[in-house]
């Protein structure tokens, strides 16, 4: 296993009007949109566990699961990125949860940040989802 995208939580992020954050974030080009409008991973064996998608998902719909051959059955890690920090939730086989917080960005640099509305590029536009980002206070 690599990641699991919960189809009940995924809302498609405005696809196909805009490229979705998870699809855009994946360094391996592994996430695509199903005809149902839900995000899906094409090949979990190709996933690197980098967590780029789980941090950016506004719906908190994605988690990492380690493969059975490495560590056994149920386990997961979720994360959410905020402007200056990331909050992580790690769950073990018995369902015990542990939360971590990591610093992600200097507070002093936040003033110079581009506003989320400017957070676009030409090939795949963020437009359409940028509002979601502002609302949730989530950062890249």
């Amino acid at each position, binding site marked *: 296993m690599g990641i699991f995208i919960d189809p009940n939580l995924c809302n498609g992020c405005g696809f196909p009007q805009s490229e979705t954050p998870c699809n855009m974030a994946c*360094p391996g080009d592994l996430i695509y949109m199903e005809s149902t409008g839900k995000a899906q991973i094409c090949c979990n064996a190709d996933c690197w566990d980098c967590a780029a998608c789980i941090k950016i998902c506004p719906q908190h719909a994605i988690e*990492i699961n380690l493969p059975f051959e490495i560590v056994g059955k149920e386990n997961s890690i979720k994360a959410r990125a905020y402007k200056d920090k990331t909050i992580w939730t790690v769950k073990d086989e018995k369902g015990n949860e542990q939360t971590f917080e990591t610093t992600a960005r200097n507070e002093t640099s936040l003033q110079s940040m581009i506003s989320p509305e400017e957070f676009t590029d030409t090939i*795949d536009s963020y437009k359409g989802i940028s509002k979601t980002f502002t609302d949730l206070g989530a950062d*890249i």
Partner: protein
Amino acid sequence: MNPIEIKKLKTDFLIIGAGAAGCFAAYEAKKLNPNMDILMVEKAHIDRSGCLAAGINALNAYITPGNTLESFVDYIKKDSMDLIREDLVYTIAKEVNKVADILEKWGLPIPKDENGKPIVRGRGSIVVQGERIKPIIAQAVKRELKDKILNRVVVTNLIVSNNKVCGAFAFGLRDKKFYVLEAKAVLVATGGASGIYKPNNEGQARHKTWYSPFNTGAGYAIGIRAGAEMTTFEMRYVSMRIKDLMAPTGAVAQGVKAKQVNALGERYLEERYSKYGGHGMSTPMRLWATLQENIEGRGPCYLDTTHLNKEQSEKLKAYYLHMTPGLTLYWAARGTTPNTDPPEIVGTEPFIVGGHAQAGYWVDINRMSTIENLYAAGDVAGGAPKKYVPGAAVEGMIVARHVVSRFESIDEPTVAEKDIKDEIQRVFSLLDMRKEVILPDELELRMQKIMDEYAGGISSNYVLNEQKLIKARKYIKDLKKESKSLFGNNFHELMKCHEVIDRLDVAQVLIEHLIYRKETRWPVYQSRADYPERDDKNWLKFVNSIYDQNSDVIKIIERECKPLDKKLIEV
């Protein structure tokens, strides 16, 4: 094959790869000349591409207090068995701290000690909270380049005419277009090559690798096919890593001063290998000693973290979230913590990567390759090991300065229509369903098996000998012929096809380098069973190569290893 839409773009400076080297090149060039046109192409998305997608928890090239430019160079020279390009390493040393300052200004958190100085983790390494280093770098570059970044565009070849670069060919993963990117100067700044050898893990875990599995050697391959001179591919990089997740060890070894112990609890580096330098021995030798312990029945080996208290253990877990979050989950899933479950250490499969070892383009002091106006920086630039992220960034800035100083005098690039037609055929014909097809995963497995068994992979304890290498040479050559049957069902698969083709070209060059160096210079990285000794009299020199695509012949060139001449650099 459906007709493919061709998109032609023209620029002054084309940057291939939006990693540390490429981004710092763009930033520096825009700073020096805002009017120069820059175009950046990236296979993934600039925000989370390449090695830095998950983040990093240290900057590993830094002049720490008590060290000097000279001691930085000397350390890397000693750790690389005296064979490095001192001129390149010295110019990197001059600016690594500046890179840290720039990153901090952009927003990278760099924790400080009570005197306001960065926290030194080890020799030449400082702690950073770098989970978001890639988006932070990307944001600074997007501000400068605006719409001049092409994400999800895969470069397939360089355009070269009369030994001058004129641009690159590429295809878009999303828009499905064929790109003809004409440029006066081109910087190759992609990652190195993983996935050439059979990895530590298989099946669903095959991509739990240390080095990014998405760095598939394209930067090397396009240069090889264009006839650029390459250096020191034989210095592979085999890394000592935490078993299963293949997480980096620096955070444990340097960060919490964990010692390497064997199954008997012995600190084996000091107790058994003191004549090789004990704990202070070179990076490849520390790994070699670990492999020896396993061969002699004293494995597994660990990084001893049992001295940590509970709080330190928790901090260590959190620290890994900045780089390898899977490891934090690993401890949780096992119901353990570092103080009760010290990480087991093993060697990775061999990687070809110039940022850690020194395989790459043979470049001059400005990082120009042997092809005019073609530059290389970061993992694909040869001769300067242990440059890591800061060194890659410095190299990008060095390239930018040279390009800015001369792009106006470079002639307009020209591209022949026939070359465009041929490349379209080569790139997209793999989408056509044929009678006999091979899937990219199948070819990858076969390549990895050959390299593992005959070219010193994990299963052969990394050991090389001529007879096996000659078999590897033949089998890889045969496999290259079979790669014509590759089939991609969609554009993602098409990219995977070309990633395997690229790695076969890298493997072919690698094998020739491994055959040519008849000594053992870097234990584990390059251990020749038939030439087990280091031989400075005959081999303290660079092994370089040029590939001729038409004849499919690789010509080997020897280059002198020169001492540092600072006068040449200051000019």
